[in-house]
Every structure is written in C-alpha cells, then in structure tokens.
C-alpha cells in the first residue's frame, strides 16, 4: 500500500493549529503528510524538481556537513575535501530535533545533514531538504541493502539515502550481571529486577526508545501508539525503576559499559561494536560484554539517513557526498575505523565481520542484515502533533521523577 500526499500544500502554511487528521479522517504527520510505517509505504511529494543530470560538481569554498558529534570519521571528511577541492566543515547538533530547529531558524546553512525517517516528513513539509537526482548516486542501488534502496518512509529515495542501521536492545557487563538476560522469558524485565545494580543501570535518553521499551515489555508492539492510556501506563512502569535501581538516563553506553561505569544499559546495536573496537580497557576480555536484541517483529530497528539541505550552494557536490558515503570502502572504513555503527551495505555481513575479528563472536547478534527489515519489522515512525505531545509530556514526567 502506498499513501499519497494530497494535503501536502496545506501543511506548508504557517498555521499554528497542528493538523493531526487529513480530510478523510486518517491521522497525518507534519504538513498533512501521511505517516510512513513499515507496512505503509509513503512516497514523499516533490516541492521542487531535482537538479539536472550531468552537471559538474562545484569546487572551492566551504562544504558544511551537519551531523551528530563524533558520528563520522574525520579522515573521510578530509579525503572528500581534497578530492573535490573544498574545505569541509563539520557542524554538530545535539539531537536531530534541535538540528532541524537550527536549520529551520536559519542559524546554520549546511550543505548536507543527517536525517532520521521519523523527522523526514517535517523536513520535507518545511522545505528544508532538497529532492535527490539518483543519477549522481549510483552506489545506492549498487551497494545498499534491497529494503533500503527504496525504503518504506521514502519510496523512490526522493530525499534520503541510508547511513547506518541499528536495533535497540540490552547491553550489559556479563562479568558483573549475574542473570542470563538472553534466556529470560522477557529480557526487558531485567531493568525491573536490577536492584542489585543500583546506580549502574541506565536507559537511553530518548523519549521514543524509553517509553517504547516499556510498551514492548508489556507486549504492546505498536511502538507508534498515540493511546494516552498505554503511554501513561508505560510511564508509570518506568517510574517504578526509581526505587528498583535508581535508574539513570544517558546516551554514552558505548563508553560507560566497557569502562564499567554502567553494568546494564538499554542500547543500540552499534554500541557494543563501538565499545569493543574503541573503549574496551586493556585486560578486559571481549566476553565481558554481552548484547541482546529481540526477534524480528519485536525489536525496534532504525536507520539514519543523509539528505541535502535546501540551503546548499553546492547541490551537485552534495549529491556526490551522499554517493561517497555509500561507497563500499568508505562505508566500511567509517564503520570499523571510527563509528562502530553499521552501514546497510551488502558487502558487510555478520560472518565476515566475525571472521575478520571486527566483531567478537559473542557480539555477533549486534550485526544486522537486510532480513531484519521488512513490512513486519518495528520502527519508530512519525507521530501526529498530538501524539508527539503525548510522548514528550510522558517522558518529561519520567525525567521529573516527581
């Protein structure tokens, strides 16, 4: 099923009344765009034509990359700059939401930026990112996993190309945590049984991941629900963790777990790999690290993307940047030499990574494949304005610990 985008223009106004439903009563996201789900594919509307094919890349001056801090290998930036004779500048944002806010306010004028599928419709409706001409990005169809060549959230890859892929699970110190988490009937329960690990237990500092985990624990697989009762119940469950283990929230699990500052942490699958490659102290064996993720259909799988910003003065070069990141060698180097977060590239498979020693055998489950995607997979998607408010207020309630 592919949804259209009939009410797109309505969403481009500066109305201050959030529209949560289309004319036919279907819930819609920002700008009146349909909300993509793995089983509901959405083709984004074009707000302008892509650039023509066959143009020469712009050279000279500055090329600005807007991304999370330390989420890209700086050597690759330098190489790209030398290849096309531009000075590549890396500008960081704290989180994707504040990044989009800064872009929308004109506080930054980057050429390319990291994007997430759940924020895509906002960026498109706000005309913050440009449509792509895939003629400049042959590596997309050549190297990328089949399910992400034309993903459900951006059918035809009109605005994005994928960057990294990760699942949400549990990352723990096997030498400190006694329970066999992977064998538990509901492994998420470990957080509610972590009284022995007080002060050493943490959740991701992300509203969707935190509340979503509490929903999954209770068997609610609709992680995009906007039912206030379900969200309130999930928040109430999370609040039990204050007394159980004085739960913490942060996003530094790739470092805190291997260094032993945290023993039990909700984590993305890229974290144990990054932890093993970069942060495991000398003398600590790789078997001290353990990772679990649920089976397909019960595990949230996300991917990050790249887009070209509407502010770019170098649209051709921006396309070449997207193609550059999908080059087999570049993507692999970014993954194993710096990032730890896996690119969805055909050449990278779990068995090879284990064989090469990039990933230890006990962390093999942290490597994903195209089979982890599909219409029956779970992914945090765009919410209506009302839904977003519900999730945000719920998380605020949890953070306030009142």
């Amino acid at each position, binding site marked *: 099923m592919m949804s259209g985008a009939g009410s797109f223009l309505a969403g481009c106004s500066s109305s201050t009344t*959030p529209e949560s439903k289309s004319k036919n009563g279907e819930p819609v996201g*920002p700008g009146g765009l349909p909300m993509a789900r793995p089983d509901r594919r959405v083709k984004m509307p074009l707000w302008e034509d892509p650039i023509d094919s066959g143009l020469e890349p712009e050279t000279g001056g500055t090329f600005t990359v807007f991304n999370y801090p330390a989420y890209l290998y700086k050597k690759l930036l330098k190489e790209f700059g030398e290849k096309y004779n531009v000075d590549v500048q890396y500008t960081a944002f704290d989180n994707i939401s504040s990044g989009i806010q800064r872009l*929308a306010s004109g506080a930054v004028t980057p050429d390319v930026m990291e994007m997430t599928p759940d924020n895509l419709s906002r960026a498109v409706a706000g005309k913050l990112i440009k449509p792509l001409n895939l003629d400049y990005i042959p590596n997309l169809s050549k190297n990328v996993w089949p399910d992400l060549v034309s993903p459900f959230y951006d059918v035809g890859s009109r605005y994005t190309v994928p960057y990294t892929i990760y699942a949400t699970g549990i990352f723990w110190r096997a030498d400190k945590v006694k329970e066999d988490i992977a064998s538990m009937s509901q492994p998420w329960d470990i957080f509610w049984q972590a009284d022995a690990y007080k002060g050493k237990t943490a959740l991701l500092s992300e509203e969707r991941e935190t509340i979503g985990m509490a929903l999954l624990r209770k068997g609610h697989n609709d992680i995009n629900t906007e039912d206030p009762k379900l969200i309130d119940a999930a928040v109430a469950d999370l609040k039990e963790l204050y007394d159980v283990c004085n739960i913490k929230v942060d996003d530094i699990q790739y470092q805190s777990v291997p260094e032993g500052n945290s023993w039990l942490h909700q984590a993305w699958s890229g974290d144990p790999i990054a932890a093993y490659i970069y942060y495991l102290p000398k003398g600590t064996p790789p078997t001290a690290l353990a990772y679990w993720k649920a089976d397909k259909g019960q595990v949230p799988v996300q991917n990050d993307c790249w887009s070209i910003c509407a502010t770019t003065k170098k649209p051709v070069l921006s396309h070449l940047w997207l193609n550059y990141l999908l080059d087999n060698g570049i993507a692999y180097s970014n993954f194993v030499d710096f990032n730890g977060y896996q690119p969805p590239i055909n050449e990278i498979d779990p068995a090879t990574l284990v064989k090469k020693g990039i990933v230890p055998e006990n962390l093999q489950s942290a490597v994903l494949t195209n089979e982890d995607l599909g219409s029956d997979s779970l992914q945090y998607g765009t919410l209506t304005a009302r839904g977003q408010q519900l999730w945000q207020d719920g998380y605020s309630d949890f953070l306030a610990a009142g």
Partner: protein
Amino acid sequence: MYRRWLWPGFALPGILWLILLFVVPAYAVVAVGFGTVDPVLLQPVPLWNPADWNTGWLVEVLHRLQPGGTFFGVAVRTIVYVGVALVLSLLVGYPVAYYIARHAGRTKNLLLVLIILPLWISYLMRMLAWVNLLAIDGYVNRFLTYTHVLSEPRDWLGGQSSTVILALVYGYIPYLILPLYAALDRIDRSHLEAARDLGASPWATFRTVTLPLSKAGILGGAVLITLPMFGDYYTPNIVSGAPTTSMLGNQIDFYFHYGGQPTIGAAITVVLAIFLTVLMAYYMWTIHRAARDVPAV
C-alpha cells in the same frame, strides 16, 4: 549642556549592553512563553505584542507546578538542592572570606588568586574532572577508604542527591566568597574596636557588628550563586544522570531541545524568573535599607 551629559554618558555602553544582551533576550523568552508553535517545523513563534499573548502555556505550567502535578516534585527538589547548597556554601565560604579579609595579611592577594583560579577552567571541564575523581576506583574513594572514613568505596556517581549538592557548592562557591570578602574587607575596624572597648566578647562583636555589616555581602553572594543554580541542568546531568536528582533546569533543557513544545520550556523559564525576581526584590530592599541605615552606625 556638554557637562550635563558627559558623566551620564559613561553609563551608555552599560545601558546598551543591558538592553541588547539582557532586556531583549529576556523579552524574547517571554514572547516565546506566551507564543505559539509552528505545527510543521515545531519552531517557537514568539508573540511580541502583549495584546496577542497566549497564556495557555503559562497556565499549563502553573497547573503542573501544583502539588500532584508533574513539575511539583522537581520544583521542590530544586528548591531543596539550591537551599542546602547555599547553606553549605555559606558555612564554607564565610570563614574563608573572613580569614582573607581579616587575617591573611600579605598572603591576601595570593589567596584571592587561588579562589579565582578554578574559574580559569571551564565549568564543564571542572565537573568532568570530578567524574573521574569520584569514580568507584577514583582518588576520592581511595583517600576515604585509606583514611578509614569509609569502610568501602561509595558510589558517588550512582545518582546521589548529596553528590549533586556538593557539585553545586564546588561549582559556584567562588562567586559567593568574592562579594563576601569585599563586604568584610570594607568594614571599618574602628567599629569592631568600639564594640570591644564597650566590653563585647569576640563572639558578641562578631554577632552584633561584623555579621550585620556583612549582610549585604552575604545576600549579594547568595543572589549571585542561587540565580544560576536554579537554572542549572548540566551539573545533575554530569555527576548523576538519574531522574531522581534532576532539577527544573533539566525540564527547561528538555522542552527547548527535544521536540515540539519549546513554549513549555519558555513558560517554565518565565515562572522561574518571576520566583527569582521576588528573591531579587528582597535583596534590593535589604541593600536599600542597609544604605539608609549606614549614617546611624
């Protein structure tokens, strides 16, 4: 004409600075708090004209600040943390300032430099240094277990209120000591000698002369450190990370930086500002009264 405007003209840079970097930004926060949100970009849309103001967000925040509301607990916790940190800062800072002003002699300047020295390093870096010092196997635990103050290492970074309060004290205490020192240093020694000549004991002299005359310094220092403490969010983030030790500043940070309701963040800021204005008004009134009473001393 020239003479009439010459001296007031010296205040012009300060006035411009205040308007550009305080009045305008403060009004912008108010305009956002009483504004709306762009439904597509989730950007705040400030309403500059008070006639257009939307009071919904402020009412929402006030509602949540009531007992039983989601912000009540974090507001009480913030007031307690700041109150305890202020008392501890005074207990540590007053004797230090008193010693420097009264007894340091030739080492006075050196001690003042040492008080200011930590400010040469960014607040963030100082707090991160404490994260290493306070780790389970850090130097603080090693020292305390070596000296048998603790029988086993304490998990200082495991989400403890005491760690957050001590970090606040550590981070802000220089700003308390400096105005306190200035106030104590300004006290005319003849007042103290007069008290002693009239038979007052050292303690009575301190209680009835030194302490009242340093009240402006105490209040000035207290205002200087409590204002930023109330809005602090990075200290609990760095040394704790647990929601049970979060402060009101964490809620402001969350609503401003994570998603579609920056207006809530702005409205909390407005409420906090009104609360702090009351404290400031008390300080101003005390200063005014102290100035009025000086001739009577």
